[in-house]
């Protein structure tokens, strides 16, 4: 048995180190370490409740709006405050803009550059992949960065700036939209649609959304060979059998996303053995047996606490181990699209389980599915009608905020006592996916997904398959170890 420490892991958001026990050219066990601690839960203690809106977006520069949205929702819950229709639409648009920009950033800047590595120099697609996806220098970067920056003009209108806005309030949005701005939002969405259709998909968004099985996907890929970046990814992915790589526990969870008028664009749920169940969030516990954190029993987030215990015996990460009914779950775009019952994603998971290819496809599918929803939301904005309701926080109250960040389910649990924050607990998406072991010794989702991975060539200490699997989760470590 040899031990391999892979780190610093780059092209993920934040700091990550993965330790692998390797024997017979296979990973026998993996240990995921989040090597940085900042302590936002401690920072928030005793603060005035509304000040959370300033601190929590700064947990993360890439899920900043998701953090704002979860906090605004937790405060609204604690205040019994409802947002007017315009406020809900503006909040959905702001969160969707962040999530779609993150999907784009992940695909082009974080994930695809691995296929341009010299490691793959003998593959038939290598020179094309290198020209297109090489980090920093590939032709895609020069097209994607300006398109992304332009798309983020949505944030200029809706949120003042990105990251770190204060426009998302418990009662709606602080930024009302005028008619002229409503038109400009539409124009920005059209420009982004054209970019996606031309560059990423080589097809209409609606045609991509209507792909309903793996065989339909493969036929579509053949028909558009090398004409756009998704077909290029699919060719590479099926050549390398990435759909057989990175299977975790195949238990998925989503809080549901983009709510309006009692409906959600993507519903919440728990996927287990091919069936969708109602999600019971009261079954969430955070285990700290292998975390450098104080505590014995696994606690519910509403009554939990986060206090560091450096040097704790048996611990190897600052990340806690959240579990649902004591079990490991995976969260992310793949989970959301499963809960939404998208036939392509359901087919992919039923055939191969959760895997590298399916996670990437689910993310890109969301680009195709959410942008048309955004176009509708913009049309439904009503300039001249209210965007925000207001109230004063109660002196004693509790609230929960559950949202979907690009990379999965994000929850905030807030307790206000005597007008101050008495407790604020956060479970971020990557806390679920990249958790360490729990008391029963069960590894987290990534740790599970890495077991059995063949290591024939350790690629200078960073086996390439391990890199694909890690990045397929689109981890955000700064959220994980807030």
């Amino acid at each position, binding site marked *: 048995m040899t031990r391999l420490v892979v780190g*610093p892991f780059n092209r993920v958001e934040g700091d990550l180190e993965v330790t692998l026990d390797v024997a017979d050219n296979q990973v026998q066990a993996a240990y995921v370490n989040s090597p940085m601690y900042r302590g936002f839960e401690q920072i928030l203690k005793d603060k005035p409740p509304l000040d959370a809106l*300033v*601190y929590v977006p700064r947990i993360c520069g890439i899920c900043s709006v998701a953090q704002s949205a979860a906090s605004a929702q937790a405060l609204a819950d604690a205040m019994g405050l409802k947002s007017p229709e315009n406020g809900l639409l503006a909040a959905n648009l702001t969160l969707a803009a962040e999530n779609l920009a993150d999907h784009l950033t992940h695909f082009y800047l974080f994930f695809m550059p691995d296929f341009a590595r010299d490691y793959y120099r003998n593959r038939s697609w290598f020179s094309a992949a290198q020209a297109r996806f090489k980090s*920093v220098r590939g032709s895609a970067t020069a097209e994607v960065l300006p398109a992304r920056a332009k798309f983020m003009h949505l944030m200029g209108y809706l949120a003042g700036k990105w990251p770190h*806005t204060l426009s998302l309030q418990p009662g709606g949005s602080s930024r009302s939209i005028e008619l002229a701005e409503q038109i400009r939002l539409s124009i920005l969405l059209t420009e982004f649609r054209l970019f996606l259709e031309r560059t990423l998909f080589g097809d209409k968004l609606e045609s991509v959304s209507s792909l309903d099985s793996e065989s339909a996907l493969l036929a579509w890929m053949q028909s558009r060979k090398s004409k756009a970046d998704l077909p290029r990814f699919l060719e590479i992915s099926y050549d390398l059998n990435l759909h057989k790589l990175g299977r975790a526990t195949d238990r998925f969870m989503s809080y549901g996303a983009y709510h309006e008028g009692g409906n959600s664009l993507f519903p919440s749920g728990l996927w287990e053995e091919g069936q969708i169940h109602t999600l019971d969030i009261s079954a969430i516990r955070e285990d700290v047996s292998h975390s450098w954190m104080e505590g014995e029993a696994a606690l519910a987030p509403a009554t939990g606490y986060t206090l560091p215990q450096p040097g704790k015996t048996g611990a190897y990460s600052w990340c806690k181990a959240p579990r649902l009914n004591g079990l490991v779950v995976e969260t992310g775009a793949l989970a959301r699209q499963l809960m939404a019952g998208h036939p392509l994603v359901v087919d992919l998971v039923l055939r191969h389980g959760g895997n590298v290819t399916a996670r990437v496809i689910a993310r890109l599918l969301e680009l195709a599915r959410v942008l048309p929803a955004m176009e509708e939301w913009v049309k439904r904005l009503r300039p001249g009608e209210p965007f925000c309701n207001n109230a004063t926080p109660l002196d004693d109250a509790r609230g929960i905020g559950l949202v979907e960040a690009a990379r999965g389910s994000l929850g905030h649990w807030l307790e206000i006592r005597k007008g101050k924050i008495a407790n604020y607990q956060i479970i971020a998406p990557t806390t679920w996916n990249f958790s360490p072991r729990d008391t029963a010794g069960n590894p987290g989702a990534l740790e599970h997904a890495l077991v059995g991975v063949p290591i024939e060539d350790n690629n200078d200490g960073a086996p390439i398959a391990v890199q694909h699997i890690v990045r397929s989760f689109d981890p955000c470590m700064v959220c994980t170890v807030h």
Partner: protein
Amino acid sequence: MHREPLNLLWLQSGGCGGCTLSLLNAECSNLFDTLESFGIHLLWHPSLSEESAQEARRIIDDCASGATRLDILCLEGSVLRGPHGSGGFHLTTGGNPMMMLIEKLAAIAKHTVAIGSCAAFGGVTSAGCNPADACGLQFEGDLPGGLLGRDFRDVSGLPVINIAGCPTHPNWIIETLAALATGVLNGQSLDVVQRPRMYADHLVHHGCTRNEFYEFKASAHKPSDLGCLMENLGCKGTQAHADCNTRLWNGEGSCVRGGYACIACTEPGFEEPGHLFAETPKLAGIPIGLPIDMPKAWFVVLASLSKSATPKRVKENAVSDHQVVVPIVKKARQK
């Protein structure tokens, strides 16, 4: 212009990565071409470069050993000194504190640049009870010191360059790096807390679209109101050093244009204002934080005068989230 490219190494520690994400909002056709056009060569960036693990460690080690010349060291995020001064809250692969690596590289880099308020002053990571014992490279809040100490000077004689902001504006980063690369940035180019004067010699108030409301002290009372945010909602735009309303963010945005207060995120210690962020602290009904160079008595007189002269249009629009009274159109030709 330097003949040889300037080698830039970007490291992240106790922060959120938001300054990097903000940098990617840069309005140029290709950020990397822009940097290269000023002769800046990106050795390694944790979010953007190809090299991972051992390959990345070699690049950093070569800088530390002097095998690769390090011209610009950028740190994003604060320095984590805890627990108990060990730096253990952020360890690099291999188990060494990030804090020590930063100190080692700053000692040999030609220039050291703090990207964002965390790296400059400690920032949000140092808020509250400061659990990770976070500080900036050369400041701890507004106190000189930080990791490198008050007397630190880089190889060229400059102190740490503090591109403060939470996050920083992409252009503040690009322009500061360009000024360094072209040799036009010197000690005179930095203000008292070492921020590039290019953007810090301005106030957020400059170019504020709520200026008419400010003039008449027609104030907003709740989020989404159109009125001035200074009197009630905590806005520090008249005190905060930055050009956010003349340069703008993400196209046509800024905090005040987004309907919320400027929280002075370019200033040391902004993370602990001593009052609710979205509520203006007052003494006898008068805001404590007045415009930066305005005597209190003048402000009080001017405010009461302008309040008494406020047109109905301005007064009513100030407390609405859309214009309820529009500017009238006079039949006579304008003079």
